[in-house]
């Protein structure tokens, strides 16, 4: 048997080489896919972890209210818990703490405000020294923020006496020496400061008192000194930043578990020493999201691998049939010589095993090399996934499975159509598609979803093959009737009537369909990721602020980015009593539109003054808040110190207008030395603000208890704005007593668009009205329309509104704070040099979603599928044409005997293959397009594994598809022409020499 196999192999080596090539290509493709879903996938996790922004990997422990005696131990124990949580990774820990409030004298007026101490590790990295020096440990020294120093009138060398802590068991008063003034740095974490880095808040309310107070701080002391300094800590937070530079998936998994368990562990360790403790980190969620994205990618890559396997099986099926045809006479001879069926089967298995071993020997290193080469090409290379060639267990298994396809039985000559297997395949494909379509959208590797592309493509191809014979027969009839020569009718007859003419049909159609599908699916996947990026980011560039916005910042952002910055808000809100049905609250997304700016234009550098009078014996004061709008549409509230209504003009030194500023609203909180609940006295107040007058102003009294400030009026006289009201000096102590003047009438409900998710969850629609809580104010909105999704909140229950209208509604309710979380910049070209917060760009997000380490394997696999499909198609085609022409060599030679020229013979042979191949390629393209349309919505997933928002729209990249089809046509034409040329040249007397 061995002799027979070897001698036959020597005689039929071209045929066996072609079979070996086919199985090697298929096994190599499977091997590369296995490496993509194992080695590359693991590496992608590592790279993704190492590239994660610090904010997404840091782990922060928060502790609240710590007695002086426990502060040091809580700090040490918390650090220990964090270090253990991020094991085995090394980490950098940084602490920040703030004391409870103490009374502080305000200048020389005798009035008192509130102040607190803070200790910040690495302070020099978080703030820059403006004047003086940094505090020394153990010396009772502190530095102040510029605004704090200014508000308190403190400077280096000043000694500030802070009173007894305002808590039970208070620490005694202390004196702090101011040694410097500092300015917060962007990204310094000042948003976690009790006053969010503002340095001074005139109406601070921490929830422990009904009345507001002026708050100053922080007094920034040395961290270690404060740790041992005997103050009660209001909050202590320690952040660990693990170094994920060299991580493995197992270590990352352990890290995720450690962080998730840290909260419980911290609680157990700290016990009663703190009132509240919590460990918070985005890290577990980030790792989980990365793993979900990894599974989504692996699922799609596996679908590609299955498609490759089906394609290989189709090629091997063809090769098997051709081999059987070539060996038909030999097999008959062996049978006639007494070789049993079992022996023949054993012979076939032995030969297949030999070929399979050879294929594995070639495909294993080849797949390693191909994978290494693939990882050195975009997008894998740019994703940091470049790797050298290496063998792995899963890869060898996949290669073995590919080689084992050789052992698939060759179907009977009856073919798919006659056996009915094609109908069964189509039914199976349809069932799988419906199943996947109705299945849930998650990140699991779903077997049906993995199989659907291959089933649909194969099903589509067998349908096309069903249509081929009648179409060819019709063409044959037409040619016989209309053509006068022999070449064309004979070519058509050969194509239509020869049973073996469409033997390569399944492979050709499937190969073309797979290649065109890969190209179109790649384009569709990219388009979807770009759409998702565009929708989720909301603008070309989004700068999410780390600190409150300041006037003129919009112009700075526009200059730095080269675009047009607009203020925007994107935050979770409560809608009435509803705070969302899932983990995330409903989102409010609002961006400043192009509406004309209201209000009074102010002269740059104008010195504004306030002059006020009040009737009656009581001493009243106001704390004016001027809401100014800059050229970018940002509204900032400028708060003046308390101004007595004594008839004298008082300057507003903190409210100096800059270029293009307009005054859009004025808030006047009225205060008295004493409010007695049962007092019935009132006072008429008149306040003049030295700004140019203009029409259209509206006055109102803010809630709560708006009735405590009656008859609010605003008038203008050309050079000033006059606000008048009657203030009740009794009544509820927490009444607002705030006169609100706006440069526009109070808007009604804010027109809004809501997402379909919100409309569904709340059962609301156009015309309905909702109340949303923005800050501390409730704003009514009216639903104008329902849309699939709201920009920057894809898929979430969300409300979109115009920020200007929303702000007007808030101002009209006495809420001076402009809701701004971010700058949305259109036409941005560059974001370097901006250190105001997190920056996301649409291009960056698109790059992350398409060429990031985790998703990069999918386009890589798709780009590998295209050449693999083309190679398999061509290999099978050449094999088919060669065998066909060899089997018909005598027949072709006899055509010469009829008087056909070689040219006619070539025309006939080319024609018969063309009329089969051309429709097959066209059909393959059509099947590829249809499969893209059907499969894309099932296979393209968001990185979370969910259905992408916006919905996937199939893309048919005409230039790429046309180029691919042209390549296939050219390659098949070249292959067929070459074989036909050789065969027609050989069609001579040698083939006719019989029995001479």
């Amino acid at each position, binding site marked *: 048997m061995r002799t027979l196999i070897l001698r036959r192999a020597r005689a039929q080596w071209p045929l066996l080489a072609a079979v070996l090539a086919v199985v090697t290509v298929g096994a190599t493709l499977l091997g590369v896919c296995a490496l993509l879903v194992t080695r590359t996938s693991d590496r992608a996790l590592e790279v993704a972890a190492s590239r994660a922004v610090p904010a997404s990997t840091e782990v922060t422990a928060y502790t609240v209210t710590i007695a002086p005696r426990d502060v040091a131990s809580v700090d040490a124990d918390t650090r220990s818990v964090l270090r253990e949580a991020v094991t085995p990774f090394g980490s950098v820990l940084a602490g920040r703490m703030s004391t409870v409030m103490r009374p502080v004298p305000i200048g020389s007026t005798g009035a008192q405000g509130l102040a607190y101490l803070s200790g910040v590790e690495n302070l020099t990295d978080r703030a820059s020294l403006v004047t003086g020096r940094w505090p020394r440990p153990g010396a009772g020294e502190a530095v102040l923020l510029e605004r704090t120093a200014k508000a308190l009138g403190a400077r280096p060398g000043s000694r500030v006496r802070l009173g007894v802590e305002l808590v039970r068991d208070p620490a005694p008063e202390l004196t702090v020496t101011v040694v410097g003034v500092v300015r917060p740095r962007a990204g310094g974490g000042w948003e976690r400061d009790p006053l969010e880095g503002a340095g001074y808040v005139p109406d601070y309310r921490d929830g422990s008192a009904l009345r507001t107070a002026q708050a100053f701080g922080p007094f920034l002391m040395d961290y270690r000194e404060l740790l041992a300094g005997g103050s009660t800590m209001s909050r202590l937070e320690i952040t660990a930043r693990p170094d994920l530079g060299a991580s493995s998936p197992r270590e990352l998994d352990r890290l995720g578990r450690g962080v998730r368990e840290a909260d419980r562990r911290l609680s157990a360790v700290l016990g009663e020493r703190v009132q509240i403790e919590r460990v918070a980190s985005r890290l577990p969620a980030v790792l989980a999201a990365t793993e979900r994205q990894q599974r989504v990618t692996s699922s799609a890559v596996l679908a590609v691998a299955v498609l490759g396997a089906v394609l290989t099986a189709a090629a091997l099926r063809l090769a098997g049939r051709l081999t059987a045809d070539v060996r038909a006479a030999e097999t008959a001879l062996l049978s006639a010589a007494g070789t049993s069926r079992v022996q023949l089967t054993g012979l076939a298995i032995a030969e297949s095993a030999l070929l399979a071993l050879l294929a594995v020997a070639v495909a294993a290193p080849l797949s390693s090399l191909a994978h290494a080469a693939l990882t050195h090409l975009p997008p894998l290379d740019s994703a940091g996934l470049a790797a050298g060639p290496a063998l792995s267990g899963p890869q060898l298994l996949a290669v073995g499975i590919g080689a084992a396809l050789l052992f698939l039985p060759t179907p009977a000559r009856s073919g798919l159509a006659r056996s009915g297997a094609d109908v069964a395949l189509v039914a199976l494909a349809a069932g799988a598609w419906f199943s996947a379509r109705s299945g849930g959208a998650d990140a699991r590797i779903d077997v049906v979803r993995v199989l659907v592309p291959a089933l649909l493509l194969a099903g589509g191809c067998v349908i096309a093959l069903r249509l081929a014979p009648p179409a060819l027969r019709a063409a044959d009839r037409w040619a016989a009737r209309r053509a006068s020569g022999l070449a064309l009718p004979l070519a058509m007859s050969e194509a239509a009537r020869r049973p073996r003419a469409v033997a390569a049909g399944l492979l050709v159609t499937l190969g073309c369909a797979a290649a065109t599908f890969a190209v179109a699916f790649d384009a569709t996947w990219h388009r979807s990721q770009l759409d998702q990026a565009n929708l989720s980011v909301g603008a070309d560039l989004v700068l999410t602020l780390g600190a409150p916005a300041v006037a003129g910042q919009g112009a700075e952002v526009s200059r730095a980015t080269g675009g047009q910055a607009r203020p925007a808000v994107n935050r979770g809100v409560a809608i009435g009593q509803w705070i969302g049905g899932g983990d995330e609250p409903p989102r409010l997304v609002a961006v400043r539109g192009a509406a004309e700016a209201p209000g009074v234009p102010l002269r740059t550098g104008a010195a504004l003054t306030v002059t006020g009078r009040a009737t009656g014996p009581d001493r009243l004061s106001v704390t004016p808040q001027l809401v100014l709008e800059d050229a970018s549409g940002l509204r900032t509230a400028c708060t003046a110190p308390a101004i007595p209504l004594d008839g004298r003009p008082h300057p507003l030194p903190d409210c100096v207008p800059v270029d293009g500023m307009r005054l859009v609203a004025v808030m006047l909180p009225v205060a008295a030395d004493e409010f007695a609940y049962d007092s019935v006295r009132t006072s008429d107040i008149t306040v003049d603000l030295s700004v140019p007058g203009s029409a259209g102003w509206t006055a109102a009294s803010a809630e709560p208890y708006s009735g405590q400030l009656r008859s609010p009026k605003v008038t203008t006289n050309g050079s000033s704005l006059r606000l008048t009201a009657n203030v009740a000096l009794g009544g509820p102590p927490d009444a607002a007593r705030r006169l609100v003047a706006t440069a526009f009438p109070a808007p009604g409900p804010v027109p809004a668009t809501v997402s379909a998710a919100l409309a569904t969850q709340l059962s609301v629609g156009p015309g309905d009205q909702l109340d949303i809580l923005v800050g501390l104010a409730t704003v009514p909105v009216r639903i104008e329309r329902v849309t699939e999704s709201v920009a920057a909140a894809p898929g979430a229950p969300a409300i979109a509104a115009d920020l200007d209208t929303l702000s007007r509604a808030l101002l009209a309710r006495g809420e001076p704070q402009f809701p701004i979380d971010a700058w949305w910049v259109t036409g941005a070209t560059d974001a370097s040099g901006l250190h105001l917060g997190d920056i996301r760009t649409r291009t960056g997000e698109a790059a992350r979603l398409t060429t990031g380490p985790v998703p990069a394997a999918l386009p890589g696999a798709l780009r590998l599928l295209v050449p693999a499909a083309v190679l398999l198609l061509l290999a099978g085609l050449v094999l088919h044409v060669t065998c066909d022409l060899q089997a018909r060599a005598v027949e072709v030679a006899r055509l010469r005997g*009829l008087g056909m020229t070689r040219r006619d013979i070539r025309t006939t042979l080319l024609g018969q293959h063309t009329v089969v191949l051309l429709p097959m390629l066209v059909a393959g393209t059509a099947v590829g397009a249809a499969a893209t349309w059907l499969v894309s919505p099932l296979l393209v997933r968001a990185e979370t594994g969910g259905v992408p928002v916006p919905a996937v729209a199939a893309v048919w990249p005409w230039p790429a598809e046309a180029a691919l089809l042209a390549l296939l046509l050219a390659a098949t034409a070249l292959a067929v022409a070459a074989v036909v040329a050789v065969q027609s040249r050989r069609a*001579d007397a040698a083939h006719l020499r019989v029995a001479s």
Partner: protein
Amino acid sequence: MSALVSVRDVHRRFGSGPATVHALRGVSFDVEAGSMVALVGRSGSGKTTLLNVVGGLDRPDEGSVVVDGDEVTALGEDGLSRLRREKVSYVFQTFGLIPVLSAAENVGAPLRLARTPAADREKRVALLLDLVGLSDHAGQRPGEMSGGQQQRVAIARALAGSPRLLIADEPTGQLDAETGRSVMALLRAVVESEGVTALVSTHDPVMMALADRVIRISDGQVDA
């Protein structure tokens, strides 16, 4: 009568060096127009090579072949194709029919090559099928017919283009004796009815008996 075919000192060798096979060694003979000549010899004697050379399917190494005034050895590819379309036709031992075409389509193939108008082609095909007694089998493909029927279709196809010379290489080699005899009789009949000249290689004594002349060939030479 004048000679339609004139073969002079034709040599044909295959291979080179010590393995060279001399298939034809200075063969010379003439075939009169309208006659039926039987070429007789053992297997390997050079009959098929000689027929291929006469029909222009093969080229001799030396010598000349003239068919109906055309010096075959001097013709190029196109000239040889034209010769086979217009003057010479073949009947092969294994019939040589095109499997995917019906009997009528096979017979019509030479007429299509000659660009004969469809109406004339159909008329001629019907006539020839009637001549070989296969009018009822016009739509059948070769695979659906017996060997004798196929050879009769092959003869009809060979006559379709009204050739001057019909070359038949062992036309009864694949047929049983009875069928072979009927095919031979048919050949003899069409030679007479169509006025065609026939050069037939055969082992069949019946064929030899039907021939006007028998040329014996052995070891690549015509026996004296």
